[in-house]
């Protein structure tokens, strides 16, 4: 995530030294001249309010009837500058005209608006995360001594019928979210599944900081929001159970590595010695629907690996290949897209940083001129000095205003260009979905190879056995066994093919959804970005035009 995202939201104060700017900040104006508008408690030292309806008529604000508000502890600097009215510094974000108002329906990703009554008629689900609490690990854990972790309150509002309720509250810890994510990945192969937030490597240390907890809370909220926005995943059983069943996490964690390794180690010799068919009994046939997992399916992994090598280096084409040209084209295009998005996102970060710097330096320049103005005014002996001081004051005021406008602009720009970062995450999900497809295909290919080799063994045995008059008992028995294996393998192959087709279908639907959403998202991003830039540029132009007018007497 871009580092400036937080800065834009959390620091709306000027960038010159805090003490200096504190004396400059002119926010104690108790009755800002905001006629007929929703007022918003504006504290420049806290986060900038993004949406405020304020009439944008500038001209009369600067010359408000109370020019010299001397604030108790800010002395004469404030008497130098007339307080810029809030109408100039904050105003209607240019977003709300152009972005579809935050719909709280199936397409919604924004979680800031409360569900309005009108949206209760259509499907909705909204998830909030709050109230982090520290809890102690129960005794009996492998880690000696007490370790602590955080839990978060997850509140869900929904009208999905399967939930049997409209509001739910549960407490979950991060590990539970990991479990949820893993289970969904297993069950919904082929879908573009949102990427869950990272685990932190140095978990216990970092946990001490409030910042980390808040960051994690936000990340979790975003993640669950994305799940809730996905047309299929939002109706998943896993999600529903996660959100509604209080107490211990109801989803089983995927078997931990240790027992899997043990299990695999036990099974492998049996597999290798042929005591067990590679795929096992009927109960295990459906396991082909799952990707080969390390530990349990060592043999399967070896076989699939061998198959992939044969695919890549073998003289002949594998028996079953990816033939969907449209898919291959799309895949290539998406790879290109991913690269470009990454590039643009990088440049966008750089752009945001430079806009930030511009605003900061402008503010410092303004401050320097404030000091100059004060100095010249105090020390004035000649009239020319007073005139100079008056000019400087205008420049200082404009520079400070422009600086604030740059900061506002930047906060909004960050919001818009953030879409690019989001799509980087989407591309990760896409790549995962394509991997699902590839590995499912590999499984099919492996099984087909198996079948073909089994069948050729049967043929050879039959040929050999036919030469012996009366038949060869041991060979015939062997042939029977092999036929049984073929039958099971055939079933497994069919299962694998069904899975592969299912994943293909998922891919196809998701690609369509991606195309549409991408188009809409980027369009609104561009609009928002452009409107923002234009709007703030116009404000900044007005600010400077005033000064140009005031100093026109000096023009050559």
């Amino acid at each position: 995530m871009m580092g400036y995202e937080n800065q834009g939201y959390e620091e709306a104060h000027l960038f010159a030294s805090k003490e200096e700017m504190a004396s400059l900040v002119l926010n104690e104006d108790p009755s800002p001249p905001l006629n007929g508008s929703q007022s918003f408690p504006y504290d420049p030292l806290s986060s900038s309010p993004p949406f405020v309806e304020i009439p944008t008529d500038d001209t009369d604000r600067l010359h408000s009837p109370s020019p010299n508000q001397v604030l108790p502890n800010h002395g004469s600097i404030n008497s130098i500058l007339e307080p810029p009215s809030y109408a100039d510094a904050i105003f209607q974000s240019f977003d709300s005209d152009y972005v579809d108002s935050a719909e709280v329906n199936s397409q919604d990703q924004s979680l800031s608006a409360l569900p309005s009554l009108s949206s209760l008629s259509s499907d909705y689900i909204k998830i909030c995360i709050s109230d982090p609490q520290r809890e102690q690990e129960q005794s009996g854990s492998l880690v000696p001594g007490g370790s602590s972790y955080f839990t978060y309150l997850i509140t869900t509002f929904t009208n999905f019928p399967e939930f049997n309720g409209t509001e739910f509250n549960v407490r979950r810890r991060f590990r539970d979210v990991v479990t949820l994510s893993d289970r969904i990945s297993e069950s919904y192969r082929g879908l573009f599944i949102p990427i869950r937030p990272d685990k932190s490597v140095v978990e216990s240390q970092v946990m001490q900081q409030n910042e980390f907890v808040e960051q994690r809370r936000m990340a979790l909220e975003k993640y669950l929001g994305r799940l809730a926005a996905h047309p299929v995943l939002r109706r998943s059983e896993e999600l529903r159970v996660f959100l509604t069943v209080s107490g211990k996490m109801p989803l089983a964690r995927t078997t931990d590595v240790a027992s899997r390794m043990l299990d695999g180690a036990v099974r492998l010799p049996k597999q290798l010695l042929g005591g067990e068919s590679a795929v096992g009994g009927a109960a295990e046939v459906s396991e082909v629907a799952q990707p080969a997992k390390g530990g349990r399916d060592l043999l399967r992994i070896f076989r699939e690996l061998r198959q992939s090598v044969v695919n890549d280096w073998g003289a002949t084409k594998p028996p079953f290949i990816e033939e969907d040209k449209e898919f291959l084209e799309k895949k290539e295009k998406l790879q290109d897209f991913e690269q470009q998005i990454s590039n643009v996102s990088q440049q966008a970060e750089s752009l945001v940083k430079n806009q930030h710097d511009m605003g900061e330096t402008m503010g410092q320049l303004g401050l320097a001129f404030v000091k100059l103005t004060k100095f010249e005014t105090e020390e004035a002996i000649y009239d020319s000095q007073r005139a100079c001081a008056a000019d400087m004051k205008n420049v200082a005021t404009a520079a400070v205003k422009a600086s604030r406008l740059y900061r506002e602009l930047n906060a909004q720009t960050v919001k818009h260009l953030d879409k690019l970062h989001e799509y980087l995450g989407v591309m990760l999900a896409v790549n995962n979905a394509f991997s699902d497809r590839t590995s499912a295909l590999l499984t099919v290919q492996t099984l087909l190879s198996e079948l073909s080799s089994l069948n050729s063994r049967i043929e050879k045995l039959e040929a050999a056995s036919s030469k012996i008059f009366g038949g060869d008992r041991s060979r015939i028995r062997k042939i029977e066994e092999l036929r049984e294996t073929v039958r099971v393998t055939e079933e497994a192959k069919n299962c694998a093919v069904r899975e592969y087709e299912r994943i293909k279908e998922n891919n196809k639907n998701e690609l369509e959804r991606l195309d549409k959403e991408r188009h809409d998202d980027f369009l609104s991003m561009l609009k928002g970005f452009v409107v923002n830039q234009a709007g703030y540029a116009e404000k900044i132009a007005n600010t400077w035009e005033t000064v140009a007018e005031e100093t026109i007497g000096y023009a050559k």
Partner: protein
Amino acid sequence: MNALQRSGSDSMAQSPRSPSSQAPYITVSVTDPAKMGNGVQAYISYKVITKTNFPEYQGPEKIVIRRYSDFVWLRDRLFEKYKGIFIPPLPEKSTVEKFRFSAEFIEMRRQALDVFVNRIASHHELQQSEDLRTFLLADEQTMERSRSQETGIFKKKPTDLMQIFKDVQSKVSDVVLGKEKPVEESNPEYEKQKNYIFQLEDHLAEAQKHAYRLVKRHRELGQSLSDFGKAVKLLGSCEGNSLGKAFSELGAKSEMLSIKLQREAHHLLMNFEEPLKDYVRAVQSIKATIAERANAFRHHCELGETIKFKEIDLNKLRLTRSEKLAEAEREYEQLKADGEESKRKFETIVKLMNEEIARFQEQKTIDMGVAFHEFAKGQALLAKSIAEAWRSLLPKLEACSSS
């Protein structure tokens, strides 16, 4: 630099092309920087064009070739001869070898030199100076000869050298003897003025520092927009369809705005930052005059001391009716004359400084006003064209959503 011509002199007319029967005028332009020579010896020469109807100049227009050290010579001569007057400042020597011949540095220097000469030419006293005439009229060889007479590690004349040694001597002896010599004027108004000048330098320097940074920010933002535009264009070409086109257009606008930003950066540098820097230098020049005044005052005081001692000596000699009396009386008279002279010099400086300060403030107000106007104008134009460029994209974006 018409504003400078209008200020500080009442004998200025407007157009340099008016016939000589009009009020006297003189304008100078420093143009056409050209690199001369090779390697370490290389330098930049400038064309100095004088347009005037002053009789001493014999002709409406004169052109000479000058280099930076010629300007330095002129400044030094004026500083020596016109104590009390704020000699206009020169741009600094380049400390970084790499940039000595960069286009931007040359342009900045050329502009500063142009301002320098015009300020001298529009000062009612300085414009009469013979050294100025030499500078504006002499051929290059004469110029070089005059210049080389001044070179050498000790630019000061022998008498000044003696004075320096005497100063050091007296300072040391004062410290040794623990004497507190009041070598400074006790003039509260003047103290205030001095304080003002010193503080003004600090404030102006800070403003100039930020102005320079602002120039850099414009360049950086420009570069960033250019890179961003390129990346967005690539994205557009891979996206295809109407949205792809929208991306491409956005990228193109971004690149276009990058160029505007670079232009504004240059405009800001030459029309806002440089004038500020110029005034920092001007204030430093005033400080040099302050030092001169302090010297003159100290010199006058010391002479006064010397005269007192001489008087005591003289009376002693009178009482003893020594034959050394006559010589001592002659020396005494000489000292008294010197004392009168130093007093006159000091008072001239004081009088001139008072006039100069008023003139300085007036000129500063005008020059700063111009700089502010240019700054505001430039920023307003830039912001307007940015707004226009982005707004022009909106209809295309609207068209996309319907498709």
